[in-house]
């Protein structure tokens, strides 16, 4: 479906993308994960034909984006990080313009626009000027724009950034619905988001791919850095020394202390479930547990774990 091979992009002397290669299969949701400035947007800009690569090749359905741009671009709908909206137009005018720009046959336009507006739920604002819409609606108009012309591939750059939690869930559900009929590539710097929707994840850092895998396999790799957060009332020193002696506990660190209420972080061996023994230890000393939860690994930890495991393999 999409083949990216040895992509390199320089901005002046700065190497933004460094020999990136991967393929995307039909019907797949591919997540593109990395911190800001890792080269996600640049890669997406290249594969949609917005920018040209310094070297390397992108083919979409066998059509090279530089040699047969019309055929390759027809298969792609792109939502850039900043939705490309003409703020002075109404939603309907805007989508009509996009339909004309993408050369949707006149007979299909109305039907297709109506269907997309229903799917992304913007039909109720279709007569409003885009400038006056909320960020969530603007984002959805941007997604509608990408869907017009019914492209096989949707490329979404940080589709949930800047939205409120309810809107984020809405957009995620929308992406899942879309994936029934489309191949989706989406970028994000939020791990749970990628875990929630993607079949496969490409992790990119400093312009290089550090890992390509399924979300499950990636979290498996992460397994040895699991952490628990615990808040309780009682003395830190005594509690910490008691917890440290429990089997499976690797370390204890204080996060915050206030009015004899302690917040601590416990690093554990994921193979042993220490939650019960921690509970009974605290209970036996009458140190009431106020909060107890496992910590989601942060992106930094993913990087550390992925890159360090790569190094281990090399050794």
């Amino acid at each position, binding site marked *: 479906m999409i083949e990216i091979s040895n992509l390199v992009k320089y*901005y*002046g002397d700065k190497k*933004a993308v460094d020999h990136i290669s991967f393929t995307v299969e039909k019907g797949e949701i591919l997540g593109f994960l990395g911190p800001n400035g890792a080269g996600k947007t640049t890669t997406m800009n290249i594969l*949609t*034909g*917005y*920018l*040209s690569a310094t070297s390397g090749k992108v083919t979409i359905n066998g059509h090279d984006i530089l040699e047969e*741009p*019309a055929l390759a*671009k*027809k298969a*792609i709908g*792109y939502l*850039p990080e*900043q*939705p*490309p*909206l*003409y*703020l*002075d*137009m109404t939603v309907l005018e805007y989508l009509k*313009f*996009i339909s*004309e*720009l*993408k*050369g949707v046959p006149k007979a299909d336009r109305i039907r297709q626009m109506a269907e997309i507006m229903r799917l992304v739920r913007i039909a109720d604002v279709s007569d409003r000027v885009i400038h006056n819409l909320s960020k969530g609606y603007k984002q959805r108009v941007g997604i509608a*724009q990408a869907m017009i012309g019914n492209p096989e591939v949707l490329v979404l750059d940080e589709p949930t950034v800047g939205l409120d939690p309810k809107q984020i869930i809405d957009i995620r559900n929308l992406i899942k619905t879309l994936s029934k009929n489309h191949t989706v590539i989406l970028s994000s710097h939020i791990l749970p988001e990628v875990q929630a929707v993607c079949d496969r994840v490409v992790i990119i850092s400093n312009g290089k791919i550090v890992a390509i895998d399924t979300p499950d396999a990636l979290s498996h790799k992460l397994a040895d850095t699991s952490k628990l957060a615990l808040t309780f009332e009682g003395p830190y020193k005594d509690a910490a020394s008691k917890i440290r002696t429990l089997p499976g506990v690797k370390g204890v660190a204080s996060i915050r202390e206030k009015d004899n209420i302690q917040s601590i972080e416990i690093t554990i061996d994921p193979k042993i479930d220490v939650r019960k023994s921690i509970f009974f230890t605290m209970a036996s000393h009458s140190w009431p547990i106020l909060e107890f939860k496992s910590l989601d690994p942060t992106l930094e930890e993913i990087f550390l774990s992925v890159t360090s495991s790569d190094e281990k393999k090399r050794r």
Partner: protein
Amino acid sequence: MLAIYKRELASYFRSPIGWVAMALYAVLGGFYFSFSMSSQSAVNISDELGLIQLFFLIVIPLITMRLFSEEKKNGTEVLLYTSTVPLYKAVLGKYLAAVSLLILMLLSTFLHVILVLSMGGLINASTLGSYISFILIGALYISIGVMASAFTENQIIAAVFSSAMIIFTMLLQVIASSLQGIFVSIISVFNPLSLSSESIYKAGENLAGAINWMDPASRTSSFSQGILSLSPLLFCISLIALFLFLTYRILEKRRWSQG
């Protein structure tokens, strides 16, 4: 391309720009028309066009400055680059939209033509020629403005750049004659090749001629005398093609270099 053309033309009238430009020309033309009717009891449409042509300096940067710079600033240029429409068609679509607005701005002067005709006045080839030369020169300046707008995402810079280019073009005749004077006086003082004063004067004249050769206004001046010739037409169209081609190349280059 039609989609881009239609959107651009419509967007002139969604913002005040289109209306302001049309109103400006209606007021200026109307002022001239009524003034000459009452004071001189004679009206020349060609002179009216000549007067409002001076305001190209303001109007053309105004209508061209946002064409590409705004797209870059708002991030909507992605649509142009990633759509299946080739980039040169986007340039043409936007250019033609601006030219169409210029023609719409002339609408109020058509009213004056009708008035002149209804009162038994004379509308002849020279009036027609004035219209053609007005549109040709306007179209040429618009192509300069379109190019300026592709340079930068700042509309003000684009406007200043195209104003400067338009002033320069408008003043070509003045520049030519003053350069001629400077050239002749400097060479007469130093005269390293010990030329005769006659040949120095000739050389100065040729220099001015060369600069005047580039002046679109003096080239199309025959039009307002009712003489429609091909060479000024080709001259303006080639220049327009050149500026639009440069615009296309600037936009195409950005795809390779921008960050």
